[in-house]
């Protein structure tokens, strides 16, 4: 019995790469978009309570953070659209 392990490996690696990358890019974009909102009283500067340099939520200015967020969203959208292009055509 011959099992096409190569194709199964491709499914694993490509799914892992795409799934994780898209979620990470969207997460980074949301952090970037959060830079416009100031930290509330009592809110920790980060999950592990380490000080964050700069404007609170990110080390970048709100404008730069928004630009990075846009880039991340663009990257996630590009990955999804390229995937659809490969599947459809």
């Amino acid at each position, binding site marked *: 019995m011959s099992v096409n392990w190569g194709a*199964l490996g491709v499914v694993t690696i490509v799914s*892992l790469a795409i799934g994780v990358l898209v979620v990470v890019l*969207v997460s980074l974009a949301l952090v970037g978009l959060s830079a416009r909102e100031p930290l509330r009283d009592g809110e920790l500067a980060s999950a592990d309570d380490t000080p964050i340099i700069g404007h609170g939520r990110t080390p970048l200015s709100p404008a730069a953070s928004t630009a990075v967020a846009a880039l991340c969203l663009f990257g996630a959208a590009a990955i999804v659209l390229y995937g659809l292009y490969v599947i459809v055509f």
Partner: protein
Amino acid sequence: MKFAGVVSKVLLPAVLSPIIAGVVALIATYLAYRITARGADGTVKKGFKVGQIISASMVALAHGTNDAQKTMGIITLTLITAGALPADAGPPFWVILSAGLAIALGTYLGGWRIIQTLGKRVSEIQTPQGFAAETSSAAVILVSSHLGFPLSTTQVATGSIFGACAGRRLASVQWGVAGQIAVAWLLTLPAAAAVGAVAAGVASTGTVGTVIVAVVLVGMAAGIYALSRRRPVTADNVNNVPAPQPVAA
């Protein structure tokens, strides 16, 4: 029967796909929570909520590229076997249309009981987990469809949801529910094979046998529907389940 082909092309991908989806969702969820820990709560929740609209649409697309094809394939194979189509024919348009409409109708009708099990009984799912699970499911199904592996969207989505719940906190997953689902999966394949074999045997005896199979099928469908009405799960009560346990993010 080409059993080796069934194992390598059907059984193995069916067994591996929920595991792969679960691992992808676990890693993606863990990273999503780590990365967005310093984000504004409102922005993060709203962002993932909007993202879920897109990721859910991708899962629906993936569902159509894989599950609908299996139905079309079986109908087309039956038509070829019966001599209604030449051996090298593709699925006729009416087969594609009916399979698509049937899947759309099934999706529209809800499957509320499955939604309740996966959305409320496994763990209390938050928007980052939902987004990660849906993205993982869509990625696994679409890549598999592209390489010609038939999968079950339900099984892949279930693996993703368990992975997403474990990615937030391992202890938040109701592993008893996971065991029940695993047993149901184990029983489904041999049960379907046995029912299919009996139905094929009876139908092959002639017209009367075919009518008997059809009548039994309709009767069983009506019985299952009647049983489901004893404790109906609808859009109104799908969320009326006690949360498994409160978990701090």
